[in-house]
């Protein structure tokens, strides 16, 4: 007399054919001898991709892809939606962690010679996947429409426009209009949540199909040699995969809870005081661009990165050395290390070039257009490069100088109407006149200051 649950399970197993599948893909699969921790990175990256899809879904329910509301929709999401800050934090750090894992995974494949025959296409699909993830990172950081979003995207799209043929067309297609603006945001949103994830899923299917077909590369053996049987895939190797994935997600969750994702001031194309810097994973490229003078500029912005990509893609086709042991691949080892040292040092150098920023207290959510206008003017005129503002939680905005400090804006008591005349001529030796502003602009500044003081 079968138990009803058992009967149900037998029904599902029979109709879906799960036991055969399990036996073939998991319990029955034996991996080559020597398979261990380095072969767990791909799975951890896959876990993060699912994490990105789920947290991205959460973000998408509240996100508003319009330049007028995108920034505030992120602020609302973080402040008022339960676990919003953590969700966005997971998405932010998850993206970085995914890039790190994919990078390590690619290094593992390179140094173990796992790209060699018959896994040339696995390598190519893998590179394309990496490209998709970079593209997701690039399109993703425009979406909050903060200062970093605006300026880093501008630089990135302009780099694409350095292509010798069709550069301008690529730029216009990405912008969707004459310049980075509302059309761009819409396009990047579609690329980020639809086009790139779909492309990624398709490539992932091809990549994993290839992994299934050719199996894990037997470590250390030359091309064509049959490896000895090693660990069982499930549950021996899967336990390692589970532990690594758990560790990675744990670190991402820790960062998300402890720090949250950064959000800079709302994008303002007319803000000349901002020092644009890309996300950390583009800092190497950022640094590389500084080395090329005007005439050789397309060399750094276009040729060098793209030729490198082509060389990487064709690697399994020109590297005919059948050996996989590093000792017998001196050239590959040398070039690999050279690349590693260059990218790490370029990234490190790029990170040394720190932007100088002071923070202007944000305008409150739902503030009137006049207050928002005042806030933008305060930012552009650089009021908080001298003044500070201490909010009710004791957080200090603006630049703090040791002496000759201009008054803290929390203690400032002029009404908006008084500000119109005051800013025109503050009658001060230190504070400049703001007579180039229109009276209604000076009034808007007063309104903004009034609103943040009332908070």
């Amino acid at each position, binding site marked *: 007399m079968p138990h009803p649950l058992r009967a149900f399970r037998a029904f599902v197993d029979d109709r879906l054919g799960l036991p055969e599948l399990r036996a073939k893909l998991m319990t029955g699969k034996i991996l080559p001898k020597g398979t261990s921790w380095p072969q767990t990175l791909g799975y951890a990256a896959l876990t993060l991709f699912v994490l990105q899809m789920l947290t991205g879904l959460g973000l998408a329910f509240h996100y508003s892809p319009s330049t007028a509301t995108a920034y505030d929709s992120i602020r609302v999401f973080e402040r008022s939606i339960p676990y919003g800050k953590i969700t966005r934090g997971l998405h932010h750090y998850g993206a970085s962690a995914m890039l790190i894992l994919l990078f390590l995974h690619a290094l593992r494949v390179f140094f173990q010679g796992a790209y060699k025959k018959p896994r040339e296409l696995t390598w190519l699909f893998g590179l394309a996947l990496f490209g998709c993830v970079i593209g997701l990172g690039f399109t993703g950081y425009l979406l909050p429409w903060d200062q970093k979003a605006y300026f880093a995207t501008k630089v990135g799209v302009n780099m694409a426009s350095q292509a010798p043929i069709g550069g301008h067309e690529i730029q216009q*297609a990405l912008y969707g209009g004459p310049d980075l603006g509302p059309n761009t945001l819409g396009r990047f949103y579609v690329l980020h949540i639809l086009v790139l994830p779909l492309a990624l899923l398709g490539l992932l299917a091809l990549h994993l199909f290839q992994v299934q077909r050719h199996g894990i590369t037997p470590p250390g053996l030359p091309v064509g040699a049959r490896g000895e049987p090693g660990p069982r895939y499930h549950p021996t190797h899967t336990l390692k995969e589970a532990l690594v994935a758990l560790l990675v997600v744990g670190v991402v969750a820790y960062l998300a809870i402890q720090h949250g994702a950064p959000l800079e001031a709302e994008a303002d194309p007319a803000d*000349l005081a901002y020092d644009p810097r890309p996300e950390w994973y583009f800092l190497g490229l950022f640094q590389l*661009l500084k080395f090329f*003078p*005007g005439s050789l500029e397309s060399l750094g912005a276009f040729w060098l990165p793209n030729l490198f990509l082509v060389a990487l893609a064709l690697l399994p086709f020109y590297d005919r050395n059948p050996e996989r042991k590093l000792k017998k691949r001196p050239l590959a080892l040398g070039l690999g290390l050279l690349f590693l040292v260059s990218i790490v040092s370029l990234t490190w150098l790029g990170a040394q070039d720190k932007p100088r920023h002071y923070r202007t207290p944000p305008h409150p959510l739902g503030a009137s257009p006049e207050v928002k206008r005042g806030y933008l003017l305060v930012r552009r005129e650089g009021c908080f490069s001298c003044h500070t503002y201490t909010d009710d939680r004791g957080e200090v905005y603006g630049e703090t100088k040791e002496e000759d400090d201009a008054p803290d804006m929390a203690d400032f008591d002029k009404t908006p109407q008084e500000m119109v005349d005051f800013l025109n001529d503050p009658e001060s030796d230190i504070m400049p006149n703001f007579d180039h502003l229109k009276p209604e602009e000076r009034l808007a500044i007063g309104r903004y200051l009034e609103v943040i003081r009332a908070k």
Partner: protein
Amino acid sequence: MNDRNDRRTFLGAFVSFLLALPLIGPALLALVSFVSPAPREGGGEIPLIPLDQIPEGEPKRVRLQYVRQVGPYREEVEKVLYLRRKGDEVLALSSECTHLGCPVRYKKDKKHFACPCHGGVFNLEGERIEGPPPRPLDRYPILPPETKGAPVRLQLKV
């Protein structure tokens, strides 16, 4: 026998093509939509400031504000320009670095424009003197004021 195989192979390829055919058109349509930027309108002659407010030596930072229609969006665009006068002629330089578009700033002490990103430097005429920018800062054509004392006008194409 061989003939029959050939025919079958050909037929197979032909039917595969037929299967793909209804998908090729829509794929091309999506691609065309992607590479076609939205139509734009706006620009023309935009008044800035009167000639006597533009200094001869140091460039003056001026905010260029105009409205453009890009596809469905009415955009209020703001850009920063540097204006400098040479007699009755006005030199209007864009503040966008010609390398990758970061905002260049005027350094009073060094009398040049510096880009905060990759180290581009331009002189007062907007010519590149250092770093990666491939060409001088963009210049906007400036029209003389319509009447004496009226603002100079900038001719803008969007």
